[in-house]
């Protein structure tokens, strides 16, 4: 494998890791607050559709992004009402959101565009275009560092940089602010927060809302940056891989970055069987790579590689007792 192939592979890793990272951080906020969310997938899918649809209609990708985030927030609120206000089962609510999104997106797409559940292909201002960082072209000829800067670091869409910037921001919010302290506390022991005179419900809604925003960006990225338009089921299990990454990352922001990059690399390799064959001298089925994130998560969950301890109050509705 030559250097340029490596750069290409890593470049595609970054692209594929971005939606995983955004969804993983979304899940991190929600689960750190004690609300398990298997509806990441559905929220991404809904956001992917609405951002592509609005971008196609208005020709503005920014309006599309806003619509994607709004749709994702709407589903988040549904999850919040079901699991926080009415103390329903968080898994069931999440599953319902996934089904709802899978069905509704295609239904509405067909009604609006009559293209078999797709949106029209996005062009020009309807897409997030790659951003060329300063001096990228000038430095491209510098050996080693040049291609890394020009090919790998430069040339991504705005949302990619946003996703990577969200990692330190998430860390800072969680571990350096009052909101973060309370958020982590409410996922560990809501009774401690409640008796300290802080509203458990408000905190959990805030977490779920942040989750909605991040999922919305992840979905918008799929249909307006990674692809040019929405197709049926385009989230393709990324919400679940993000959940796997969250467990893999032990609910920590920096680990989430590494986990999603690793899973992104598997995704990139899936499309380049020639690279694998060149490196390990063996043919590997693409499906195996696709399954690797899940396999690794099962191994982690079984406790072989360190222990992943979820937030202690995760999944449990808070019922005030005496």
């Amino acid at each position: 494998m030559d250097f340029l192939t490596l750069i290409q592979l890593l470049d595609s890793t970054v692209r594929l890791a971005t939606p995983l990272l955004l969804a993983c951080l979304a899940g991190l906020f929600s689960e750190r607050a004690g609300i398990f969310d298997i509806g990441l997938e559905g929220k991404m899918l809904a956001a992917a559709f609405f951002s592509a649809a609005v971008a196609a209609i208005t020709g503005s990708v920014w309006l599309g992004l806003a619509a994607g985030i709004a749709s994702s927030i709407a589903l988040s609120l549904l999850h919040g009402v079901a699991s926080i206000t009415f103390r329903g089962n968080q898994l069931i609510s999440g599953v319902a959101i996934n089904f709802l999104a899978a069905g509704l997106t295609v239904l509405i797409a067909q009604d609006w565009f009559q293209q078999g559940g797709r949106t029209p292909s996005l062009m020009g201002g309807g897409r997030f275009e790659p951003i060329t960082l300063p001096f990228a072209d000038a430095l491209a000829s510098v050996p080693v560092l040049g291609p890394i800067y020009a090919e790998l670091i430069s040339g991504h869409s705005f949302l990619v940089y946003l996703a990577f910037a969200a990692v330190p921001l998430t860390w800072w919010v969680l571990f350096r602010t009052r909101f973060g302290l309370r958020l982590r506390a409410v996922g560990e022991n809501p009774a401690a927060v409640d008796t300290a005179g802080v509203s458990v419900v408000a905190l959990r809604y805030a977490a779920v809302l942040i989750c909605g925003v991040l999922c919305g960006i992840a979905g918008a990225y799929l249909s307006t940056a990674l692809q040019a338009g929405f197709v049926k089921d385009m989230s393709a299990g990324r919400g679940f891989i993000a959940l796997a990454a969250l467990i893999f990352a032990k609910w920590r922001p920096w680990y989430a970055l590494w986990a999603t990059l690793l899973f992104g690399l598997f995704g990139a390799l899936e499309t380049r069987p020639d690279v694998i064959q060149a490196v390990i001298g063996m043919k590997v089925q693409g499906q195996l790579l696709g399954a690797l994130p899940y396999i690794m998560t099962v191994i982690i969950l079984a406790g072989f590689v360190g222990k992943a301890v979820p937030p202690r109050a995760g999944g449990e509705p808070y019922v005030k007792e005496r």
Partner: protein
Amino acid sequence: MADNAPAIELKGISKAFGPVQANKDISISVMPGTIHGIIGENGAGKSTLMSILYGFYKADRGEIFISGRKTEIPDSQAAISAGIGMVFQHFKLVENFTVLENIILGAEDGGLLRPSLAKARKTLVELEQEYGLNVDPDAVIQDLGVGMQQRVEILKALYRQADILILDEPTGVLTPAEADQLFRILGRLREEGKTIILITHKLREIMEATDTVSVMRRGEMTATVKTHQTSPAELAELMVGRKVLLRVDKKPATTGDVVLDIKGLRVVDDQKVERLKGIDLQVRAGEILGIAGVAGNGQSELLEVLGGYEKATGSITLNGQPLDLTGKGSDGRTRRQRGIGHVPEDRQREGLIMDFSAWENTAFGYHRAPGYQNGVLMDNSAIREDTAAKMQRFDVRPPNPSLAAKSFSGGNQQKIVLAREIERNPDLLLVGQPTRGVDIGAIEFIHQQIVALRDQGKAILLVSVELEEILALADRVAVMFDGVIMGERMSDQTDEKELGLLMAGVAA
């Protein structure tokens, strides 16, 4: 505001949950700088009253005055601003946070953590000097012992400038030494002018620590008296409305052959920690051996091994025949077939399935017993009848076998478990915490049943963290500390002080 206004005064507080009147027209007044005890049986309404004070429930009627001023307490935030701090029976701490983080939670200054943490660190040093409450601010809660965790709870309240401190059953989880320390701290707080309300069902603590005491019974405040003008016997009578025996009435034991013989028993848990470090014990027919000790020193593991759901090395014989400690024969059903009855420590998790009916619960462990089967099916109506009869004999109220286990009170749940195990006529009965969360009336009955079984010549192994109970019930006492037996005493030749030292790991 008058200078001699009570720190806290309740007038005519009433609260009903559906048809149940939890608090009926309750009035108390506590002067500043005093320790006021509230004593009563489980379900007497103590906790409801405190929840009203801390803004968890809203009273149907009545008024609360803090330092002479009428105060509404709609939520915990209001209670905190009124200067009320609460130390709950089950601590409200975030286990993987540090002491400092727990203390500032909800009382931060501003949006960023660093300044809040720095300020709390400084305040903590001041509080430490003022009240002698030292604790490492950077320790993580889950690494601290319960005594220390409780201290963090008290510090949390003081950090929020609480003047009134409410402690709910604070000594339930403490060693006698830790409890003494707690009461020293409370004394110090009282000297500094804090007002303390101590909720407990332990008469001894009321007598030792409080200035005034109120007694609650069935939602009503039956009396408020000065502590030095009353006696434990009088308080006990006020609590239950009749005289109760604080000592168990029993004849001297007539012991027979060795029923249970344990030699060199070791248990290593999943984390590779040795929980039992070579236990030797014998229990004879016709005697009650009490295992005393602070919770978590290996008593639970001992019961689990004997009950058949924990693996161990060493040897155990029952009536001279060895028990299988690791293989196929080490399960609850086989143990029961061998004649070991087991009343587990945690009846709600191990003794019963709370959502199942009393008769289903009565069949557990004995579902293959003759009379309970009808071919391959269970003979439900036979089990139901049998359960009804057992419930009569053990005075379970209400005596309805179809009611779910969770619908019974703690004492009646325990009677259901006890009836299931005792009526199978076991050679050895294992009893863990027989009266935890059980009211005094039922305690008496349960103790009588255990003594009656002993008098039939059965061997009984009793594990309890209540020293009073061990001393009253057991014929012989073994004290466990850190997985070993610290010593054995005849219960009529020892006292709480000597056992307390052994429980703390001090060889006497």
